[in-house]
């Protein structure tokens, strides 16, 4: 590789520097994943995740449940997290406060109810 090419690739590497995700994204996502991993398969179905098999259906449930753009769903996650006592470890072993099973189930029911409400109007 010529020196010029090497220099250009170095410049390109510097320009396309990796981007650190915002801390609140990691927190939100870890909380959601922790909740989901607590769910039994039947509960997942009840949560209507099956609608997400088709990527074209992703936008609505994902937005309602996770992204925070749907305030209701985000709030029930936060409420559930406040209710949940910190546990030494969760299914994902994540460092955030973990939801215990009961809290996860409450979260599921709350999310399912809130999601139906949020999606029902569309």
């Amino acid at each position, binding site marked *: 590789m010529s020196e010029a090419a090497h220099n*250009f690739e170095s410049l390109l590497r510097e320009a396309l*520097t990796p981007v650190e995700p915002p801390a609140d994204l990691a927190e939100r996502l870890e909380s959601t994943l922790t909740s989901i991993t607590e769910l039994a398969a039947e509960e997942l179905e009840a949560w209507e995740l099956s609608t997400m098999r088709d990527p074209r259906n992703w936008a609505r449930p994902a937005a309602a449940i996770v992204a925070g753009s749907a305030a209701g769903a985000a709030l029930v996650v936060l409420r559930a997290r406040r209710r949940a006592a910190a546990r030494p470890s969760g299914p994902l072993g994540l460092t955030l406060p973990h939801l215990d099973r009961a809290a996860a189930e409450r979260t599921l029911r709350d999310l399912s109810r809130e999601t139906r409400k949020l999606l029902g109007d569309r």
Partner: protein
Amino acid sequence: MTETHLKKSKAQLDGEFSELYRAHLRDVYSYAYYRVGDHHDAEDLTEQTFLQAYRHFERAQQESNGRPLRPWLIRIAHNLAANLYRDRSRKPASPIDENSNLTALHTTEQLVEGRDELSRVLAGVQQLPDDRREALIMRFALGMDNREIARAMDRTDGATKVLIHRAIKQLEELVGDPRKDGRDE
């Protein structure tokens, strides 16, 4: 017995997914950011990518035959981003965010040193065809090798090598001749 076995398997899967998540959150977010061009959409895309990945994780593991799953994650992000643009019936006006946001990624020191060439490079990246732009993002922002990029883009290793070579050449031309950069006009 069966139930215990299933629970153990689920715990193992969850643990392995956790490792995947921790190892590649930044990769997925970086890809999403350079792909969609703003932080808000990048966050949504990252979340959707990991949730979809979790849903299909077991099957992906089985089909990967022990190969790294990063290309699979990036492919999910790629597909979701494509759907995002299709649903919006448009491509982003600026595939990579406005320069003001991008330059914020770099240190003030670099900017003081007159590294506006970084902005020119990024502007050039925006002008590349989608496949070339994505290949460069994977190579330089994520540090993926040709084989990983080939898997993520569903191409052969050879085709990927050619793609990256041509992308760099085209970018060099764009950056080297500002008149070809529409943003500078």
